[in-house]
C-alpha cells in the first residue's frame, strides 16, 4: 500500500466492494448453518454492514423471490428479487410481513408432546421426536402425509419417503387453491385443451380483459405477477379495458372500468350467452357449444339486462386481443366444471390461444414429472373416510392447517379422533397442531432450505430457491432432516442439503438457463446467490382446442334465494381476505392493515347492501347470526354499497381459535357455513350456499380506517 492510500480511499474501496456484493450467496463451503460468537462472525458478515440473501417467499404457493436484508445476524427487511422472473423485484403485503411470522412471540419453540386440545406443551428432545416418526414409518400402510402447497422440495422428499417405505402418496391442500377451484380449472383444461396443466392468462398484452370473479389483484394464482400484468395492460400503447362480473365489488373489481353484479351461479349462462351473441354477430352462426343457451333466460337468471349483454358482446367484437378469466368463485358452483369449460371454450372462440394477450399452458416446472395439483374437497373427503374407517394410524401434517382451512362439514375434526397418532410439523400452535399428539416444529421459511416451483405467473420454466437467511431462532428442526433421519437407510441422503443438491444436479446441464456452471458446487452457489434457477426465454405453449366448440354445454338457472317472507334467504359469497389470505392472521401488522374495500382492521364483517339492511332494520356494527344448513356464526354488519341486495359476503382469513395471540378469538371463520357438496370436478361447491340472517340485538363496533366514529364504547356491552 502506498503512502497516498488514505483512509478515505480505503472507504471508497470498501464501498465499491459492498455494491458488488448486493446479492450474496452462500459459497459451497457454507452449507451448514451454525451458531457462532460475535468474535467469529459468519462469513460475509461485517459490523455495521448489511448482508443480503436471496430466498423464496412462503406466504403463498406462488413462489416469489425475496432478497432479505440481514444485519448482524438478524433479518430486518424483505424485498423483492429483481432478477426473479415471477415478481421482478416486487412483493405483496403478505410477503412484506413475512418477518412478523418469523420473529413472532407465539411460535412453537421446541419439539413437544401434548394432550390433544391442550395448549400446554411438554418438551421432548429431537432424538425422541425422530423415534416417534420412525415408529410411524414402520407401519407404512397406516401412514398418511398431509402437506401444504409450499414448499415443493418437502413434497418431493415426502413423495420419495413414501415410495421408499411403501406408504400412500402424500396429499396437498391449501385454502387458496380451494377458493381458486384448481381441480375444476385443471379438469376443464383437460376436457377442452387435452392437458390438465395450469394455465397462464397473458393480461399484460390484452386490450380487453373480462373476468368472471377472478380476484387476480388479491390472491388469485400469483397476485404479484398478475398485478404487474395489469399495470402493463393499463400502460400499453392502448390502455386495456377491464370488465369484472361478480356479485360484490372486490378490490380487483374496483379497478375495473365496468363492473356487473352477477347472481352467483349464473356465470356459465352468461358466458354461453356472450359466446352465442359474439359468434352470431361475427360469423353469423353460433358454435354447438353455445347454441343451446336462451338469451332471455340467461338475462333473467343472471340479473343482467339484454342491453348489458349487447354491450359486452360489442366489446368482444371490437377488441383485438380479448381474454376471459375463470375466477374461483365462478367455478366453485354445482355447474362449475361446465362454467370453466365454457370460459375456456369462449377463449378458443375468441382465437386467443397461444397468442399475445391470450391463454397459454404454463411450461413444465423444473424437476417435475407433472403438475401435482392440491387436493380437491372430494379427495380430502376420501381421506376423511379412510380415517373414519380406521385405515390411518398416523397422520403427519405440514404446512397446512386443515382444521381451519377446510369446511367443518367435511368432518375432519371427528375423523382425527380415529387416528391413533397425529404429528404436526407446524411452526405455530395452530388449530391442527393443538389437535395433534406431537408438534415437531419446522424452521420458519426464512430459516429454511428448499425450493418452490414457479407454476402460475411466469412464462419461463422456473425453480425458486430458498436458503436460511438467519440462524434458526428457536429449537426447531427442518422437517426434511427429521424425515431423512427417521427413514434411515431407506433414503440415500445424509441431510436436507444433500437431498436438495441431488435434485438440483439435474439442472446443471439443463439448456437455456439464466446462468450456467461447470459443476454442481458452483451451480449450487449460483442457485443460492440468485435465489433459484430459471430459463431466459418463455416456453409457455399454445393450448389446442380441437373440437371444443362442437361439444354442447348446458346450464341451468341458479337456484334463487327465497326473497320474501320471514325466512328471507341470501346467497353467501365468501372470498379470501386480500390482506390475510389463508395464513396471515398471526402477523400483527397484517391485522392492522385496513381492508382495501371496507377499511376494516383486526376483525371479520358481513357485507350487506344498505337497502337490504334498511329493509331488515340493521345498522352498521349490528351483530347478526348467519345460519346455513351446515353451521352458524355471529358477526358485525358492514353496510357495503357495492353488493347485490340478495347476496351477503364474509371474508375468509379470521376466526382462529388458536394460531397465536394476534389471530386467536378474532372474527369468524366462514368455512363453518360451507356444506360438503362438491362439483363434478370434486371441488367444494361453496358458491351455492344459502344463509338466513337473524338479528341478535347486540352491537360490536368494527375498527375502520375510513371513519373514527362509532368505536367509542368499544368492548362495552350494549
Amino acid at each position, binding site marked *: 500500500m502506498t503512502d497516498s492510500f488514505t483512509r478515505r480511499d480505503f472507504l471508497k474501496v470498501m464501498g465499491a466492494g459492498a*455494491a458488488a456484493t448486493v446479492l450474496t450467496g452462500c459459497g459451497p463451503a457454507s452449507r451448514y448453518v451454525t451458531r457462532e460468537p460475535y468474535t467469529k462472525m459468519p462469513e460475509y458478515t461485517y459490523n455495521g454492514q448489511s448482508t443480503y440473501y436471496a430466498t423464496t417467499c412462503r406466504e403463498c404457493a406462488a413462489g416469489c423471490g425475496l432478497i432479505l436484508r440481514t444485519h448482524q445476524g*438478524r433479518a430486518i427487511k424483505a424485498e423483492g428479487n429483481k432478477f426473479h422472473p415471477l415478481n421482478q423485484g*416486487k412483493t405483496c403485503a403478505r410477503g412484506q410481513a413475512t418477518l412478523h411470522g418469523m420473529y413472532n412471540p407465539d411460535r412453537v419453540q421446541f419439539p413437544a408432546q401434548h394432550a390433544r386440545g391442550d395448549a400446554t406443551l411438554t418438551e421432548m428432545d429431537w432424538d425422541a421426536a425422530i423415534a416417534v416418526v420412525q415408529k410411524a414409518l414402520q407401519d407404512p400402510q397406516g401412514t398418511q402425509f398431509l402437506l401444504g402447497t409450499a414448499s415443493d422440495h418437502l413434497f418431493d422428499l415426502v413423495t420419495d419417503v413414501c415410495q421408499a417405505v411403501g406408504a400412500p402418496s402424500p396429499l396437498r391442500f391449501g385454502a387458496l387453491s380451494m377458493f381458486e377451484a384448481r381441480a375444476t380449472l385443471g379438469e376443464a383444461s383437460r376436457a377442452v385443451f387435452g392437458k390438465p396443466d395450469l394455465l397462464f392468462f397473458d393480461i399484460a398484452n390484452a386490450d380487453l380483459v373480462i373476468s368472471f370473479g377472478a380476484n387476480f389483484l388479491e390472491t388469485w394464482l400469483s397476485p404479484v405477477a398478475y398485478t*404487474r400484468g395489469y399495470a402493463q395492460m393499463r400502460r400499453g400503447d*392502448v390502455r386495456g379495458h377491464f370488465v369484472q362480473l361478480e356479485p360484490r365489488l372486490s378490490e380487483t373489481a374496483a*379497478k375495473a372500468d365496468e363492473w356487473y353484479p352477477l347472481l352467483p351461479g349464473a356465470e356459465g349462462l352468461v358466458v354461453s350467452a356472450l359466446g352465442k351473441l359474439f359468434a352470431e354477430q361475427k360469423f353469423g352462426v353460433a358454435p354447438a357449444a353455445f347454441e343451446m343457451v336462451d338469451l332471455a333466460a340467461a338475462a333473467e337468471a343472471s340479473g343482467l339486462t339484454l342491453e348489458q349483454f349487447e354491450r359486452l358482446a360489442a366489446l368482444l367484437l371490437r377488441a383485438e386481443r380479448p381474454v376471459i378469466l375463470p375466477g374461483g368463485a365462478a367455478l366453485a358452483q354445482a355447474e362449475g366444471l361446465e362454467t370453466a369449460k365454457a370460459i375456456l371454450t369462449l377463449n378458443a372462440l375468441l382465437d386467443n390461444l397461444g397468442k399475445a394477450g391470450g391463454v397459454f399452458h404454463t411450461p413444465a416446472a423444473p424437476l417435475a414429472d407433472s403438475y401435482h395439483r392440491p387436493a380437491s374437497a372430494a379427495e380430502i373427503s376420501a381421506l376423511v373416510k379412510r380415517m373414519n374407517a380406521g385405515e390411518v394410524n398416523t397422520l403427519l401434517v405440514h404446512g397446512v392447517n386443515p382444521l381451519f382451512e377446510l369446511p367443518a362439514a367435511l368432518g375432519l375434526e371427528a375423523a382425527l379422533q380415529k387416528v391413533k397418532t397425529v404429528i404436526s410439523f407446524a411452526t405455530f400452535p395452530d388449530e391442527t397442531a393443538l389437535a395433534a399428539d406431537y408438534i415437531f416444529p419446522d424452521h420458519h421459511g426464512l430459516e429454511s432450505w428448499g425450493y418452490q416451483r414457479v407454476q402460475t405467473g411466469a412464462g419461463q420454466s422456473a425453480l425458486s430457491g430458498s436458503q436460511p437467511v438467519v440462524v434458526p431462532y428457536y429449537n426447531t428442526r427442518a422437517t426434511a432432516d427429521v424425515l431423512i433421519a427417521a427413514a434411515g437407510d431407506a433414503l440415500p441422503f445424509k441431510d436436507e442439503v444433500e437431498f436438495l443438491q441431488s435434485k438440483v444436479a439435474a439442472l446443471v446441464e439443463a439448456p437455456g438457463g439464466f446462468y450456467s456452471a461447470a459443476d454442481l458446487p458452483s451451480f449450487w452457489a449460483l442457485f443460492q446467490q440468485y435465489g433459484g434457477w430459471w430459463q431466459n426465454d418463455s416456453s409457455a405453449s399454445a393450448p389446442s382446442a380441437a373440437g371444443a366448440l362442437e361439444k354442447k354445454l348446458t346450464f341451468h338457472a341458479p337456484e334463487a334465494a327465497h326473497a320474501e317472507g320471514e325466512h328471507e334467504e341470501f346467497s353467501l359469497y365468501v372470498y379470501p381476505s386480500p390482506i390475510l389470505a389463508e395464513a396471515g392472521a398471526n402477523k400483527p401488522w397484517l391485522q392492522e392493515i385496513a381492508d382495501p374495500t371496507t377499511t376494516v*382492521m383486526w376483525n371479520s364483517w358481513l357485507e350487506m347492501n344498505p337497502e337490504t339492511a334498511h329493509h331488515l332494520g340493521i345498522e352498521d356494527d349490528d351483530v347478526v347470526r348467519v345460519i346455513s344448513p351446515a353451521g352458524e356464526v355471529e358477526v358485525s354488519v358492514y353496510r357495503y*354499497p357495492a353488493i347485490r341486495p340478495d347476496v351477503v359476503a364474509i371474508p375468509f382469513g379470521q376466526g382462529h381459535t388458536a394460531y397465536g395471540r394476534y389471530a386467536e378469538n378474532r372474527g369468524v371463520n366462514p368455512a363453518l357455513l360451507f356444506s360438503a357438496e362438491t362439483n363434478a370436478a370434486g371441488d367444494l361447491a361453496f358458491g351455492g350456499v344459502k344463509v338466513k340472517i337473524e338479528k341478535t340485538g347486540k352491537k360490536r363496533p368494527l*375498527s375502520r*380506517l375510513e371513519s373514527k366514529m362509532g368505536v367509542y364504547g368499544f368492548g362495552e356491552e350494549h
Partner: protein
Amino acid sequence: MAIPKIPEFKAEWKEGEEGRWGMAVDMDLCTGCQACVVACSMENNVPFVGEAEAGYGRSLGWIRVERLWEGQYPEVKMTPYQPVMCQQCGSAPCEPVCPVFATVHSQAEQLNVQVYNRCVGTRYCANNCPYVVRVFNWADFDRPDPLPNQFNPDVTVRRRGVMEKCTFCIQRIHRAEDQAKAEGREVLDGEAQPACAQACPADAIVFGRLDDPESRVSKLSRSNRGSHLLEELGTQPRVTYLKGGSNDRLG
C-alpha cells in the same frame, strides 16, 4: 434596546423552484393492495396499535390508501385508490407552528423532516396539516419479544409523546447518496427508492429527483394526467397524483 432577531424557521422557498426529491403516484395503476403500507411499516419501525386503538384512529401507518364511494347500487363506483403520505410540501403548514423546531425543512434534501428528540408532543403540526398524514404516538405500543429483532438500525424507534410521519425514507436517500459519493458520481435515477415504491407490485409509485428533468418522476410529474392534492392551499406538494385514462375504442 435592540430587537432580538427571530430565527428563520420556515424554508426559504421560491415559487416555481423544483424540489430535489419527489414522487409520482399513478392512481390508474394503484390496486389498493397495501403492500406499500406494510413495506413502509417494516422499513421504518412503525408499531402496530391493536384493534381498539386503531378504531380510535390512532394507527401509526405513514401511508394510508384512500378510497371513496360514488353513486348508489347498482350505479356505484369506487374512486381510484389513492395512497396518501406526507406530501413533503415546499411551503409546509406544519413547519411554522412547531414551538420547538422539531418539524423543519432540511436544506440538503429539501424535505420536511421531523426531529424526534426535539418533539415535545404539542401536536400543533398535525393540527395544521391539511393532508392529515402526521401520526402521534399516544402510548408506547407493546412489541413483545422477539419482534424487536426486526428493527431497522437505520431508523430511530420512537417513544410515547412523539409526532412522526413519512420521511421519503431519508435513510435510503442517504445510503444512495453516500454510495454515489464514494464512487464519485451523481445518484442514478431509481437508485434511491423508498420502501413503498420498491415494493409496489404495479409500479404505481415512482420516486426520484425533480431537479433532473430526465428522471422518470420528473417526466411523470409533467404529465397532463397529473395533479397535486389541495394545491390551491399553496403548499407546493412534492407528490404528483396521476389520474386514469380510457380506451377510445372500447371505453
